[in-house]
Protein backbone atom coordinates (compact mmCIF):
# COMPACT_ATOMS: atom_id res chain seq x y z
CA UNK A 1 0.00 0.00 0.00
CA UNK A 2 3.09 2.20 0.19
CA UNK A 3 2.25 3.50 3.66
CA UNK A 4 5.05 5.17 5.61
CA UNK A 5 3.97 3.50 8.85
CA UNK A 6 3.50 -0.10 10.02
CA UNK A 7 0.86 0.72 12.57
CA UNK A 8 -1.05 3.87 13.30
CA UNK A 9 -3.45 4.20 16.21
CA UNK A 10 -5.62 7.27 16.43
CA UNK A 11 -7.70 8.35 19.41
CA UNK A 12 -8.07 4.92 21.03
CA UNK A 13 -10.53 5.12 23.90
CA UNK A 14 -11.87 2.24 25.92
CA UNK A 15 -13.74 2.17 29.20
CA UNK A 16 -14.81 -0.59 31.56
CA UNK A 17 -17.82 0.07 33.73
CA UNK A 18 -17.36 3.84 33.57
CA UNK A 19 -13.59 3.71 34.24
CA UNK A 20 -11.43 4.91 31.36
CA UNK A 21 -8.70 2.31 30.79
CA UNK A 22 -7.45 4.05 27.65
CA UNK A 23 -8.11 7.70 26.88
CA UNK A 24 -7.50 9.07 23.39
CA UNK A 25 -4.27 7.17 22.75
CA UNK A 26 -2.56 7.86 19.44
CA UNK A 27 0.72 6.43 18.23
CA UNK A 28 2.60 5.71 15.03
CA UNK A 29 5.35 3.17 14.42
CA UNK A 30 7.41 3.42 11.24
CA UNK A 31 8.91 0.42 9.45
CA UNK A 32 11.98 -0.90 11.29
CA UNK A 33 11.23 1.10 14.43
CA UNK A 34 10.99 -0.33 17.96
CA UNK A 35 8.52 1.54 20.16
CA UNK A 36 8.59 1.10 23.92
CA UNK A 37 5.25 1.51 25.66
CA UNK A 38 6.02 2.41 29.26
CA UNK A 39 3.80 2.75 32.27
CA UNK A 40 3.30 1.56 35.81
CA UNK A 41 1.03 -1.41 36.46
CA UNK A 42 -2.56 -0.46 35.68
CA UNK A 43 -1.59 2.43 33.39
CA UNK A 44 -3.51 0.86 30.51
CA UNK A 45 -0.64 -0.86 28.68
CA UNK A 46 -2.32 -4.24 28.27
CA UNK A 47 -5.66 -2.68 27.24
CA UNK A 48 -3.80 -0.61 24.64
CA UNK A 49 -1.90 -3.68 23.40
CA UNK A 50 -5.15 -5.67 23.14
CA UNK A 51 -6.72 -2.87 21.09
CA UNK A 52 -3.65 -2.64 18.83
CA UNK A 53 -3.86 -6.42 18.30
CA UNK A 54 -7.59 -6.33 17.52
CA UNK A 55 -8.58 -8.45 20.52
CA UNK A 56 -10.63 -5.60 21.91
CA UNK A 57 -12.42 -3.10 19.75
CA UNK A 58 -11.97 0.49 20.98
CA UNK A 59 -15.08 2.48 21.96
CA UNK A 60 -13.63 5.31 19.89
CA UNK A 61 -10.71 5.57 17.47
CA UNK A 62 -9.19 3.09 15.05
CA UNK A 63 -6.01 1.15 14.39
CA UNK A 64 -4.53 0.93 10.91
CA UNK A 65 -1.90 -1.68 10.06
CA UNK A 66 0.02 -1.00 6.84
CA UNK A 67 -2.99 0.88 5.55
CA UNK A 68 -5.66 -1.66 6.58
CA UNK A 69 -8.16 -0.69 9.26
CA UNK A 70 -8.54 -3.26 12.05
CA UNK A 71 -12.27 -2.60 12.29
CA UNK A 72 -13.11 -2.24 8.59
CA UNK A 73 -10.66 -4.75 7.05
CA UNK A 74 -9.88 -7.00 10.03
CA UNK A 75 -8.68 -10.01 8.03
CA UNK A 76 -6.13 -8.10 5.94
CA UNK A 77 -4.97 -6.11 8.98
CA UNK A 78 -4.53 -9.17 11.20
CA UNK A 79 -2.49 -10.97 8.54
CA UNK A 80 0.12 -8.24 8.97
CA UNK A 81 0.17 -8.42 12.75
CA UNK A 82 1.92 -10.68 15.25
CA UNK A 83 0.99 -10.55 18.92
CA UNK A 84 2.57 -11.99 22.04
CA UNK A 85 0.27 -11.35 25.03
CA UNK A 86 1.66 -11.11 28.55
CA UNK A 87 1.01 -14.82 29.07
CA UNK A 88 2.45 -16.80 26.10
CA UNK A 89 -0.58 -18.22 24.24
CA UNK A 90 0.72 -21.78 23.97
CA UNK A 91 -1.03 -25.15 24.15
CA UNK A 92 1.07 -27.12 26.67
CA UNK A 93 -0.18 -30.46 25.36
CA UNK A 94 1.24 -29.89 21.86
CA UNK A 95 4.85 -30.22 20.67
CA UNK A 96 6.65 -27.09 19.47
CA UNK A 97 6.40 -28.31 15.84
CA UNK A 98 2.67 -29.06 16.11
CA UNK A 99 1.97 -25.73 17.77
CA UNK A 100 3.93 -23.63 15.28
CA UNK A 101 2.35 -25.55 12.38
CA UNK A 102 -1.07 -24.74 13.79
CA UNK A 103 -0.18 -21.05 14.21
CA UNK A 104 1.11 -20.91 10.62
CA UNK A 105 -2.17 -22.31 9.26
CA UNK A 106 -4.15 -20.01 11.54
CA UNK A 107 -2.28 -17.06 9.97
CA UNK A 108 -3.29 -18.37 6.55
CA UNK A 109 0.16 -19.44 5.37
CA UNK A 110 -0.34 -21.73 2.35
CA UNK A 111 -0.12 -25.48 3.11
CA UNK A 112 3.11 -25.95 1.11
CA UNK A 113 4.83 -23.12 2.92
CA UNK A 114 3.92 -24.16 6.47
CA UNK A 115 6.85 -26.57 7.03
CA UNK A 116 9.53 -24.12 5.71
CA UNK A 117 7.99 -21.31 7.81
CA UNK A 118 8.12 -23.48 10.95
CA UNK A 119 11.77 -24.42 10.25
CA UNK A 120 12.75 -20.81 9.59
CA UNK A 121 11.11 -19.46 12.72
CA UNK A 122 12.61 -22.24 14.86
CA UNK A 123 16.06 -21.28 13.65
CA UNK A 124 15.36 -17.63 14.25
CA UNK A 125 14.17 -18.18 17.82
CA UNK A 126 16.66 -20.91 18.78
CA UNK A 127 14.07 -23.68 18.96
CA UNK A 128 15.60 -26.19 16.53
CA UNK A 129 16.58 -28.66 19.27
CA UNK A 130 13.22 -28.63 21.03
CA UNK A 131 10.89 -29.08 18.01
CA UNK A 132 9.70 -32.52 19.13
CA UNK A 133 9.29 -31.63 22.80
CA UNK A 134 5.99 -30.92 24.49
CA UNK A 135 5.62 -27.23 25.30
CA UNK A 136 4.55 -28.24 28.83
CA UNK A 137 8.06 -29.59 29.47
CA UNK A 138 9.91 -26.46 28.32
CA UNK A 139 11.34 -23.82 30.66
CA UNK A 140 9.59 -20.44 30.94
CA UNK A 141 12.29 -18.88 28.75
CA UNK A 142 11.77 -21.41 25.97
CA UNK A 143 7.99 -21.06 26.23
CA UNK A 144 8.49 -17.33 25.74
CA UNK A 145 10.59 -18.04 22.65
CA UNK A 146 7.78 -20.24 21.32
CA UNK A 147 5.40 -17.34 22.02
CA UNK A 148 7.63 -14.97 20.03
CA UNK A 149 7.99 -17.57 17.25
CA UNK A 150 4.20 -17.74 16.77
CA UNK A 151 4.09 -13.94 16.58
CA UNK A 152 6.62 -13.76 13.71
CA UNK A 153 5.89 -16.99 11.78
CA UNK A 154 3.86 -15.17 9.12
CA UNK A 155 6.43 -12.38 8.69
CA UNK A 156 4.12 -9.65 9.97
CA UNK A 157 4.74 -5.95 9.38
CA UNK A 158 4.27 -5.22 13.08
CA UNK A 159 5.07 -7.34 16.12
CA UNK A 160 3.37 -6.47 19.42
CA UNK A 161 5.05 -7.85 22.54
CA UNK A 162 3.38 -7.40 25.93
CA UNK A 163 5.96 -7.54 28.74
CA UNK A 164 8.01 -10.26 27.06
CA UNK A 165 10.66 -10.56 29.77
CA UNK A 166 8.45 -10.76 32.86
CA UNK A 167 9.13 -13.82 35.01
CA UNK A 168 12.34 -14.82 33.22
CA UNK A 169 15.72 -15.37 34.85
CA UNK A 170 18.57 -12.89 34.06
CA UNK A 171 20.14 -15.11 31.37
CA UNK A 172 16.79 -15.67 29.68
CA UNK A 173 16.11 -11.91 29.82
CA UNK A 174 19.38 -11.18 28.01
CA UNK A 175 18.58 -13.81 25.35
CA UNK A 176 15.04 -12.55 24.75
CA UNK A 177 16.24 -8.93 24.54
CA UNK A 178 18.85 -9.96 21.98
CA UNK A 179 16.14 -11.72 19.98
CA UNK A 180 13.88 -8.64 20.09
CA UNK A 181 16.77 -6.43 18.95
CA UNK A 182 17.31 -8.75 15.99
CA UNK A 183 13.59 -8.68 15.18
CA UNK A 184 13.66 -4.90 15.32
CA UNK A 185 16.09 -4.84 12.39
CA UNK A 186 13.59 -6.45 10.02
CA UNK A 187 10.17 -5.69 11.55
CA UNK A 188 8.44 -2.90 13.42
CA UNK A 189 8.00 -3.75 17.07
CA UNK A 190 5.86 -2.40 19.90
CA UNK A 191 7.15 -3.48 23.26
CA UNK A 192 5.27 -2.93 26.48
CA UNK A 193 7.28 -2.99 29.67
CA UNK A 194 7.91 -1.27 32.96
CA UNK A 195 11.61 -2.11 33.00
CA UNK A 196 13.42 1.08 32.03
CA UNK A 197 16.86 -0.37 31.07
CA UNK A 198 15.00 -2.65 28.67
CA UNK A 199 13.62 0.35 26.83
CA UNK A 200 17.02 2.04 26.69
CA UNK A 201 18.72 -1.05 25.30
CA UNK A 202 16.08 -2.05 22.73
CA UNK A 203 13.81 0.83 21.72
CA UNK A 204 14.13 3.72 19.25
CA UNK A 205 11.09 5.58 20.55
CA UNK A 206 9.31 5.83 23.89
CA UNK A 207 5.65 6.42 24.72
CA UNK A 208 4.77 6.77 28.39
CA UNK A 209 1.24 6.08 29.60
CA UNK A 210 -0.37 7.25 32.77
CA UNK A 211 -3.93 6.45 33.79
CA UNK A 212 -4.77 5.49 30.23
CA UNK A 213 -3.33 8.66 28.66
CA UNK A 214 -0.17 9.32 26.66
CA UNK A 215 1.93 11.69 28.82
CA UNK A 216 5.18 11.53 26.86
CA UNK A 217 6.12 10.57 23.34
CA UNK A 218 9.69 11.05 22.07
CA UNK A 219 12.64 9.35 20.38
CA UNK A 220 15.08 7.66 22.73
CA UNK A 221 17.85 9.98 21.47
CA UNK A 222 16.03 12.94 23.00
CA UNK A 223 16.98 11.92 26.54
CA UNK A 224 19.91 14.01 27.59
CA UNK A 225 22.34 13.54 30.43
CA UNK A 226 20.46 16.23 32.37
CA UNK A 227 17.24 14.26 32.52
CA UNK A 228 17.44 10.49 32.32
CA UNK A 229 14.54 8.29 31.25
CA UNK A 230 14.21 7.09 34.83
CA UNK A 231 13.81 10.61 36.23
CA UNK A 232 11.29 11.53 33.56
CA UNK A 233 9.35 8.29 34.06
CA UNK A 234 9.08 8.82 37.82
CA UNK A 235 8.17 12.48 37.36
CA UNK A 236 5.40 11.64 34.90
CA UNK A 237 3.92 8.56 36.52
CA UNK A 238 4.37 8.98 40.25
CA UNK A 239 2.47 11.25 42.65
CA UNK A 240 4.33 10.25 45.77
CA UNK A 241 6.59 13.10 46.93
CA UNK A 242 8.96 10.77 48.80
CA UNK A 243 9.64 8.71 45.70
CA UNK A 244 10.15 11.86 43.69
CA UNK A 245 12.72 13.28 46.08
CA UNK A 246 14.56 10.03 46.83
Amino acid at each position, binding site marked *: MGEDYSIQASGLTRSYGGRLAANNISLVVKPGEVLGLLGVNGAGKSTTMDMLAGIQIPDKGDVSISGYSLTKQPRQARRRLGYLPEQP*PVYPELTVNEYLGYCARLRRIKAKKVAPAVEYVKQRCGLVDVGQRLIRNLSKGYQQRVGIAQAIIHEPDIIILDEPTVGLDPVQIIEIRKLIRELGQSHSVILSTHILPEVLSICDHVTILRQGKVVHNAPISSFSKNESLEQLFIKLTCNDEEVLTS
Partner: protein
Amino acid sequence: MINTIAGRELRSIFVSPLAWTTLAILQFLFAYLLFSRIELFMQYLPRLRTMDAAPGITEIVAMGLFSIAGLVLLVITPLFCSRALAEERRSGTLKLTLSSPVSLTDIVLGKFIGLLSFFLIIIFLLACMAFSLALGGPIDFLQILGGTLGLVLLTSACIAIGLFMSSLTNQPTVAAISTFASLFFLWIIKWDDENVLGITTYLSIQEHFSSILSGRLASVDVIFFILVSFFFLSLTIWRLDLERN
Protein backbone atom coordinates in the same frame (compact mmCIF):
# COMPACT_ATOMS: atom_id res chain seq x y z
CA MET B 1 -9.80 -22.41 8.56
CA ILE B 2 -12.62 -24.26 10.35
CA ASN B 3 -10.72 -27.51 9.60
CA THR B 4 -7.52 -26.13 11.14
CA ILE B 5 -9.27 -25.14 14.37
CA ALA B 6 -11.28 -28.40 14.47
CA GLY B 7 -8.10 -30.43 13.89
CA ARG B 8 -6.29 -28.68 16.74
CA GLU B 9 -9.26 -29.18 19.05
CA LEU B 10 -9.40 -32.90 18.24
CA ARG B 11 -5.62 -33.25 18.65
CA SER B 12 -5.77 -31.58 22.08
CA ILE B 13 -8.61 -33.93 23.11
CA PHE B 14 -6.65 -37.00 22.04
CA VAL B 15 -3.41 -36.09 23.77
CA SER B 16 -5.25 -35.92 27.08
CA PRO B 17 -5.77 -39.09 29.12
CA LEU B 18 -9.41 -38.02 29.61
CA ALA B 19 -10.29 -38.92 26.00
CA TRP B 20 -8.74 -42.39 26.05
CA THR B 21 -10.10 -43.18 29.50
CA THR B 22 -13.57 -42.08 28.45
CA LEU B 23 -13.44 -44.15 25.26
CA ALA B 24 -12.26 -47.25 27.15
CA ILE B 25 -14.75 -46.97 29.99
CA LEU B 26 -17.67 -46.21 27.67
CA GLN B 27 -16.83 -49.21 25.48
CA PHE B 28 -16.86 -51.44 28.55
CA LEU B 29 -20.13 -49.98 29.85
CA PHE B 30 -21.90 -50.15 26.50
CA ALA B 31 -20.67 -53.71 25.88
CA TYR B 32 -21.96 -54.76 29.31
CA LEU B 33 -25.25 -53.05 28.59
CA LEU B 34 -25.52 -54.74 25.18
CA PHE B 35 -25.02 -58.20 26.67
CA SER B 36 -27.49 -57.56 29.49
CA ARG B 37 -30.10 -56.39 26.95
CA ILE B 38 -29.48 -59.49 24.80
CA GLU B 39 -29.91 -61.65 27.90
CA LEU B 40 -33.19 -59.86 28.67
CA PHE B 41 -34.36 -60.37 25.08
CA MET B 42 -33.56 -64.11 25.21
CA GLN B 43 -35.45 -64.39 28.49
CA TYR B 44 -38.60 -62.85 27.00
CA LEU B 45 -38.26 -64.51 23.59
CA PRO B 46 -40.74 -67.38 24.21
CA ARG B 47 -43.38 -64.88 25.38
CA LEU B 48 -42.65 -62.44 22.53
CA ARG B 49 -43.22 -65.22 19.99
CA THR B 50 -46.84 -65.57 21.11
CA MET B 51 -47.56 -61.85 20.76
CA ASP B 52 -48.87 -60.01 17.72
CA ALA B 53 -46.65 -57.15 16.58
CA ALA B 54 -44.18 -57.90 19.36
CA PRO B 55 -41.09 -55.68 19.62
CA GLY B 56 -38.04 -57.23 17.97
CA ILE B 57 -34.36 -57.37 18.84
CA THR B 58 -33.84 -53.89 17.34
CA GLU B 59 -36.36 -52.25 19.67
CA ILE B 60 -35.43 -54.14 22.81
CA VAL B 61 -31.65 -54.43 22.48
CA ALA B 62 -30.40 -51.74 20.06
CA MET B 63 -32.83 -48.94 20.96
CA GLY B 64 -32.55 -49.82 24.65
CA LEU B 65 -28.79 -49.42 24.32
CA PHE B 66 -29.12 -46.12 22.42
CA SER B 67 -31.59 -44.77 24.94
CA ILE B 68 -29.16 -45.21 27.84
CA ALA B 69 -26.24 -44.07 25.65
CA GLY B 70 -28.12 -40.79 25.09
CA LEU B 71 -28.24 -40.22 28.83
CA VAL B 72 -24.55 -41.11 29.20
CA LEU B 73 -23.63 -38.64 26.42
CA LEU B 74 -25.66 -36.00 28.25
CA VAL B 75 -23.39 -36.51 31.25
CA ILE B 76 -20.02 -36.62 29.47
CA THR B 77 -20.40 -33.87 26.85
CA PRO B 78 -20.15 -31.13 29.52
CA LEU B 79 -16.75 -32.52 30.61
CA PHE B 80 -15.30 -32.06 27.12
CA CYS B 81 -17.10 -28.87 26.07
CA SER B 82 -16.35 -26.98 29.27
CA ARG B 83 -12.64 -26.65 28.39
CA ALA B 84 -13.21 -25.48 24.83
CA LEU B 85 -13.41 -21.73 25.47
CA ALA B 86 -13.15 -21.36 29.27
CA GLU B 87 -9.73 -23.01 29.44
CA GLU B 88 -8.53 -21.05 26.39
CA ARG B 89 -9.59 -17.83 28.03
CA ARG B 90 -7.85 -18.78 31.28
CA SER B 91 -4.60 -19.89 29.64
CA GLY B 92 -4.52 -16.92 27.24
CA THR B 93 -4.64 -19.00 24.03
CA LEU B 94 -7.95 -17.38 23.10
CA LYS B 95 -5.95 -14.21 22.40
CA LEU B 96 -3.91 -16.12 19.81
CA THR B 97 -7.06 -17.09 17.92
CA LEU B 98 -8.70 -13.68 18.32
CA SER B 99 -5.64 -11.82 16.98
CA SER B 100 -5.41 -14.14 13.95
CA PRO B 101 -7.13 -13.48 10.61
CA VAL B 102 -10.09 -15.75 11.41
CA SER B 103 -13.72 -14.87 12.05
CA LEU B 104 -15.58 -15.65 15.27
CA THR B 105 -17.84 -17.97 13.25
CA ASP B 106 -14.76 -19.95 12.12
CA ILE B 107 -13.56 -20.23 15.73
CA VAL B 108 -16.90 -21.44 17.12
CA LEU B 109 -17.68 -23.81 14.21
CA GLY B 110 -14.12 -25.18 14.33
CA LYS B 111 -14.47 -26.01 18.00
CA PHE B 112 -17.95 -27.45 17.45
CA ILE B 113 -16.78 -29.74 14.64
CA GLY B 114 -13.66 -30.80 16.56
CA LEU B 115 -15.73 -31.80 19.59
CA LEU B 116 -18.43 -33.44 17.47
CA SER B 117 -15.78 -35.50 15.66
CA PHE B 118 -14.67 -36.99 18.97
CA PHE B 119 -18.22 -37.92 19.90
CA LEU B 120 -18.84 -39.33 16.41
CA ILE B 121 -16.20 -41.95 17.23
CA ILE B 122 -18.22 -43.02 20.31
CA ILE B 123 -21.45 -43.02 18.31
CA PHE B 124 -19.82 -44.98 15.45
CA LEU B 125 -18.69 -47.70 17.88
CA LEU B 126 -22.19 -47.80 19.37
CA ALA B 127 -23.72 -48.18 15.90
CA CYS B 128 -21.27 -51.02 15.17
CA MET B 129 -22.45 -52.78 18.34
CA ALA B 130 -26.08 -52.38 17.27
CA PHE B 131 -25.39 -53.58 13.71
CA SER B 132 -23.47 -56.59 15.08
CA LEU B 133 -26.86 -57.93 16.25
CA ALA B 134 -27.41 -58.88 12.59
CA LEU B 135 -25.11 -61.83 13.28
CA GLY B 136 -27.81 -63.33 15.51
CA GLY B 137 -30.97 -62.60 13.56
CA PRO B 138 -32.88 -60.13 11.40
CA ILE B 139 -32.62 -56.49 12.48
CA ASP B 140 -34.20 -53.25 11.32
CA PHE B 141 -31.27 -51.48 9.68
CA LEU B 142 -33.24 -48.31 9.05
CA GLN B 143 -34.31 -47.99 12.67
CA ILE B 144 -30.70 -48.37 13.83
CA LEU B 145 -29.61 -45.76 11.30
CA GLY B 146 -32.39 -43.48 12.54
CA GLY B 147 -31.30 -44.08 16.15
CA THR B 148 -27.69 -43.28 15.22
CA LEU B 149 -28.84 -40.03 13.63
CA GLY B 150 -30.78 -39.32 16.84
CA LEU B 151 -27.60 -39.73 18.89
CA VAL B 152 -25.67 -37.43 16.53
CA LEU B 153 -28.40 -34.77 16.74
CA LEU B 154 -28.63 -35.04 20.52
CA THR B 155 -24.85 -34.74 20.87
CA SER B 156 -24.76 -31.71 18.54
CA ALA B 157 -27.29 -29.93 20.71
CA CYS B 158 -25.38 -30.86 23.90
CA ILE B 159 -22.08 -29.58 22.43
CA ALA B 160 -23.66 -26.31 21.26
CA ILE B 161 -25.08 -25.69 24.75
CA GLY B 162 -21.72 -26.70 26.28
CA LEU B 163 -19.81 -24.29 24.05
CA PHE B 164 -22.11 -21.45 24.99
CA MET B 165 -21.68 -22.15 28.71
CA SER B 166 -17.92 -22.36 28.16
CA SER B 167 -17.96 -18.94 26.48
CA LEU B 168 -19.45 -17.35 29.59
CA THR B 169 -16.67 -18.07 32.07
CA ASN B 170 -12.96 -18.76 32.49
CA GLN B 171 -13.59 -21.61 34.91
CA PRO B 172 -14.04 -24.96 33.12
CA THR B 173 -15.67 -26.50 36.21
CA VAL B 174 -18.31 -23.78 36.33
CA ALA B 175 -18.96 -24.28 32.61
CA ALA B 176 -19.26 -28.06 33.07
CA ILE B 177 -21.73 -27.81 35.94
CA SER B 178 -23.83 -25.15 34.17
CA THR B 179 -23.91 -27.24 31.00
CA PHE B 180 -24.91 -30.39 32.84
CA ALA B 181 -27.61 -28.53 34.79
CA SER B 182 -29.03 -27.01 31.57
CA LEU B 183 -29.00 -30.34 29.73
CA PHE B 184 -30.51 -32.22 32.64
CA PHE B 185 -33.23 -29.59 32.98
CA LEU B 186 -34.05 -29.87 29.28
CA TRP B 187 -34.13 -33.67 29.71
CA ILE B 188 -36.65 -33.60 32.60
CA ILE B 189 -38.53 -30.45 31.61
CA LYS B 190 -41.66 -32.23 30.39
CA TRP B 191 -44.68 -31.42 32.54
CA ASP B 192 -47.36 -34.09 32.81
CA ASP B 193 -50.34 -31.75 32.71
CA GLU B 194 -50.37 -30.83 29.03
CA ASN B 195 -53.14 -28.27 29.52
CA VAL B 196 -50.94 -26.19 31.77
CA LEU B 197 -47.61 -26.27 30.01
CA GLY B 198 -47.77 -27.83 26.55
CA ILE B 199 -44.57 -26.06 25.58
CA THR B 200 -42.53 -28.19 28.01
CA THR B 201 -43.17 -31.26 25.83
CA TYR B 202 -41.82 -29.38 22.83
CA LEU B 203 -38.72 -28.26 24.74
CA SER B 204 -37.96 -31.70 26.18
CA ILE B 205 -34.87 -33.20 24.54
CA GLN B 206 -35.83 -36.57 26.00
CA GLU B 207 -39.19 -36.43 24.24
CA HIS B 208 -37.65 -35.70 20.82
CA PHE B 209 -34.86 -38.22 21.31
CA SER B 210 -37.28 -41.00 22.36
CA SER B 211 -39.48 -40.17 19.39
CA ILE B 212 -36.54 -40.68 17.00
CA LEU B 213 -35.53 -43.94 18.74
CA SER B 214 -39.07 -45.28 18.42
CA GLY B 215 -38.53 -45.41 14.67
CA ARG B 216 -40.59 -42.38 13.69
CA LEU B 217 -38.08 -40.05 12.11
CA ALA B 218 -40.34 -37.00 12.19
CA SER B 219 -39.00 -33.75 10.78
CA VAL B 220 -40.16 -31.89 13.91
CA ASP B 221 -37.68 -33.86 16.05
CA VAL B 222 -34.79 -33.41 13.61
CA ILE B 223 -35.53 -29.70 13.21
CA PHE B 224 -35.73 -29.27 16.99
CA PHE B 225 -32.16 -30.52 17.53
CA ILE B 226 -30.84 -28.53 14.54
CA LEU B 227 -32.55 -25.38 15.85
CA VAL B 228 -31.15 -25.85 19.37
CA SER B 229 -27.62 -26.36 17.97
CA PHE B 230 -27.92 -23.35 15.65
CA PHE B 231 -29.37 -21.14 18.40
CA PHE B 232 -26.64 -21.88 20.95
CA LEU B 233 -23.80 -21.67 18.41
CA SER B 234 -25.13 -18.24 17.38
CA LEU B 235 -25.31 -17.23 21.04
CA THR B 236 -21.68 -18.31 21.50
CA ILE B 237 -20.55 -16.18 18.54
CA TRP B 238 -22.58 -13.27 19.90
CA ARG B 239 -21.00 -13.72 23.35
CA LEU B 240 -17.45 -13.65 21.93
CA ASP B 241 -18.31 -10.60 19.85
CA LEU B 242 -19.68 -8.88 22.95
CA GLU B 243 -16.44 -9.62 24.80
CA ARG B 244 -14.41 -8.05 22.00
CA ASN B 245 -16.57 -4.94 21.97
